[in-house]
């Protein structure tokens, strides 16, 4: 939803991920960008350049924190040191909401540093929802969980991925970061209907949407974030916007990163769909309000 309790009642528009190759351009050109998403882990440090850069960005831009290692679906307990550092960063960035993935990645204190898929069981949903509630209580900001791309399914699963997502977010009473590229990638790998997934999401819980590119191989599709967004993913985005309204949107580009302008241009394509949505809702199109990239 455009502004809801899962994104701190904000209307953030279209953002891009803050990446090192773009620092120079951002500081020299000061481009107009609705918002930046930062990877929390890159700034959960004691000092030095990462925090210096972040403070400069925070002076000029709105920032939302996105994490890659909370592992809300791991059976083990949350890592206290992780939560302490995360809260310190939340105070610094004043992120209106915080996102991480609906996945697991550590067991018995050993970390794989990967976003491993969940078994879609009622037990896993309960454990994950409890942990999300704990994080939400500790950080005192809304949490939205992101559906991941996956390459494997488990025999023990008792429901579909989207049923599991709904089960978790309702039990945790948290938001959703809907990654439409991940839905597409997983639908290719597991042979489900991506549109059915999008249509099954509780639209009122969607805090934010991710779009990205991926790589197709003969036997599977990999979530590489190294290409422009493909048309079927834009169509899933369109449908998501129809259902959820004009929601904060972010383009992820993590590998073979092109120029800042190219990444931002790709992200701003989302405005076509957001404008259509605004028109059908009788609201002034967003692209007349938001400046074009590099306009300063």
């Amino acid at each position, binding site marked *: 939803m455009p502004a809801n309790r899962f994104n701190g009642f904000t209307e953030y528009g279209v953002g891009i991920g803050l990446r090192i190759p773009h620092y120079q351009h951002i500081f020299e050109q000061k481009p107009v960008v609705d918002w930046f998403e930062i990877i929390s*882990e*890159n700034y959960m440090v*004691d000092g030095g350049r*990462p925090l210096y850069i972040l403070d400069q960005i925070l002076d000029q831009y709105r920032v939302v924190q996105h994490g890659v290692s909370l592992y809300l679906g791991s059976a083990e307990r949350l890592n206290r040191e992780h939560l302490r550092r995360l809260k310190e960063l939340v105070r610094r960035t004043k992120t209106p909401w915080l996102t991480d993935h609906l996945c697991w990645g550590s067991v018995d204190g050993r970390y*794989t540093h990967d976003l491993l898929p969940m*078994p879609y069981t009622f037990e896993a949903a309960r454990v994950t929802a409890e942990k999300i509630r704990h994080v939400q209580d500790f950080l005192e900001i809304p949490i939205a969980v992101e559906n991941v791309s996956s*390459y*494997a399914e*488990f025999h023990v699963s008792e429901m579909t991925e989207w049923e599991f997502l709904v089960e978790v977010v309702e039990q945790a009473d948290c938001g959703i970061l809907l990654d439409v590229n991940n839905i597409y990638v997983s639908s290719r790998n597991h042979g489900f209907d991506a549109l059915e997934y999008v249509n099954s999401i509780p639209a009122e819980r969607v805090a934010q949407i991710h779009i990205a590119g991926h790589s197709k191989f003969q036997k599977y599709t990999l979530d*590489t974030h190294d290409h422009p967004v493909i048309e079927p993913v834009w169509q899933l985005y369109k449908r998501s916007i129809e259902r959820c309204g004009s929601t904060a949107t972010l383009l992820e580009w993590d590998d073979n990163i092109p120029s800042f302008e190219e990444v931002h241009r790709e992200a701003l394509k989302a405005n076509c769909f957001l404008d259509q949505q605004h028109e059908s809702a009788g609201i002034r199109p967003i692209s007349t309000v938001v400046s074009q990239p590099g306009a300063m």
Partner: protein
Amino acid sequence: MTSQLLQLQRRMATAVMEPLTRQETTRKIRRDGAVMAREASVFIKPNASLTSLERLEIYNKQYWFRLYSSLEDDFPGLLAVLGRRTFERVMRCYLDTYPSTSFTLRDLGSKLLMYLSSHEALTGGKSKLVLDVVGLEWAHIEAYDAATFPAPEPKYFAGITDDSLLRLQPSVRLLELSYPVDDLLISIRQSIGSSDTSSNNASVTRKSSTIRYVGKISPTNLWLAVHRQEFAVYYKRLRPEEYRMLCGIQAGLPLGEVFGTAFQGSTMDEASQADLLQEAFHQWAVLGWLCAPE
């Protein structure tokens, strides 16, 4: 009772963290004797185009590719000294013994120096050089994002006595080395640049940097401070007396003791010692290395 979720996660993590073959594929037989295809089929569903094992292999490869590339980013000097084949063999053994126990990849190499100190055979005739390189590369990582504490008020220095205490900024790291690895790392880092990020994407192939191989390096004793200025990390060579003083300060010794140990066995006359003290403290203050005691 172990939950079904925990059981599945243990099973999958063990499979994902199993080292790859030399051809970078999933092993057919695991080192504990388990047949991987059978193991994978117990918990992973096959689909029309991939077997359970092939699906597992995607994660098995991603795990190793991601970790190797993170270690390559953090230890380019070690990669240059060992060459890729040995580097990867050493890293595989290291990660097998010490899998990551931190949420951040930044800490992945935190036990590497300790590991290599007790496994010198892994790096053969180069083990002393290797330990120097790894020590410096880890100090570099620690200096890069360490906290900064406030400097002491100027009046603190005026009232200093033998019992006074000082602290070093956490970004100052002290090393006693047997090889000039500072010059080596400066040239390697200049040629490759460096990165410091986490992300959440998968990689098509393994990311590997171009390696600069290193010729023979002659041993030299040297004392080094790794420190940070304007958010960049620098290496500064020290005189042994300076090194000993800084180690004393870092260990929390009162200044009287710091001075005493610094000149133990030194042939320097008293006047020269006084000059060195004054010059060294002035320089450390200018560089912002000193901070007030807690």
